[in-house]
């Protein structure tokens, strides 16, 4: 299982990464969330918004949200 947050280096990407970490702890997953600050990789996925939450290689949330419920659901639905 791989959970990644791709960002462009802006404060909201960092914030989202933190919320995702909390969500992963809450679900009780034994995995480390990766934070990748590379716009080029977001573009390569065919996207243009940051941050992007990627679960097992699939973008599941695009753009910033602080909503931990939504983030938790997006991770659980795509495990």
């Amino acid at each position, binding site marked *: 299982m791989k959970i990644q947050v791709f960002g462009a280096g802006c404060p909201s990407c960092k914030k989202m990464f933190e919320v995702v970490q909390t969500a992963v702890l809450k679900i009780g997953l034994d995995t480390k969330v990766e934070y990748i600050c590379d716009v080029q990789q977001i573009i390569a996925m065919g996207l*243009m918004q940051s941050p992007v939450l990627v679960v097992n290689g699939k973008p599941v949330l695009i753009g910033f949200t602080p909503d931990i419920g939504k983030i938790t659901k997006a991770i659980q639905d795509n495990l």
Partner: protein
Amino acid sequence: MDIFFPIKLLADWLTYSILVITPKTLLAEAVNFFIYDSIKIFILMAVIIFAVSIIRSYLPPEKIRSILSHKNKYAGNVIASLLGIITPFCSCSAIPLFLGFIQAGVPLGTTFSFLVASPMINEVALVLLLGMFGWKIALIYIVSGLIIAIFSGIIIGKMKVESLVEPFVYENTINGNVDLPTTTRNERIAYAKNYTLDILKKVWIYILIGIGIGAWIHGYVPADFLAQYAGSDKWYAVPLAVLIGIPLYSNAAGIIPLVSVLTEKGVSMGTTLAFMMSVTALSLPEFMILKRVMKIKLIFIFAGIVGMGIIFTGYLFNLVL
């Protein structure tokens, strides 16, 4: 009838009955103005930002890109500028947008039309213009902004300046199109609600400070006091306003309530419009960030063309309004 009339009644009631300020005094004028404008702006803000967010949820940048990559040059500039209106813009979204557009084959000129329109015609500026100046000025602002965005893009496209973009931008790395997660009606409404609250949280203090200083000027500075410095007969007023506007982007929300009062004290309308366009469209942080994807020369060309467009608009409306 003025649809804001009930707010006027509320402001009068708060000023004279609740705060018990003697009518017709300078203090009463200032307090009344502050209460009325604040309530009006925040109501407009909630309604308009919510509506724009709903529209936006149907048009994420990825969809806009696929629309733009299939358009010919001139139609592309027009559509890019129109789509720029509903797209929110912050300096951290500039790079993903620029890279994403160029790598998908959207022409450089079209991309610039979008980059000009997106920050210049944004919903916060629009609400404030509508609230402080009325729909005519708001409309003039939108239309002139669109024209500047369209023509700046066309001119930059014609200049063949692709060599001034960093070469890595053109290395196409896009692996086909991703399927965007589907959005339900409830999610759109939730998104719009959150976005509206976010913006309000971010700007309310600047707006209140702007309106507050504005209210003070409204009450205490004599009308036409500024005409001697910045009236329409002063040739330097427009370029000076544009220069002052460049470093002020982060505070656009507080600046518009302030300038609306300045016009009342004698700053001419064209100068005011040019100032607001410069505040929104020419932003120092955006230029710094764009340096990562283009040579400084191109940033100067971009700022120069947009700046000239704004100055021209300023002079034009100083003459006709």
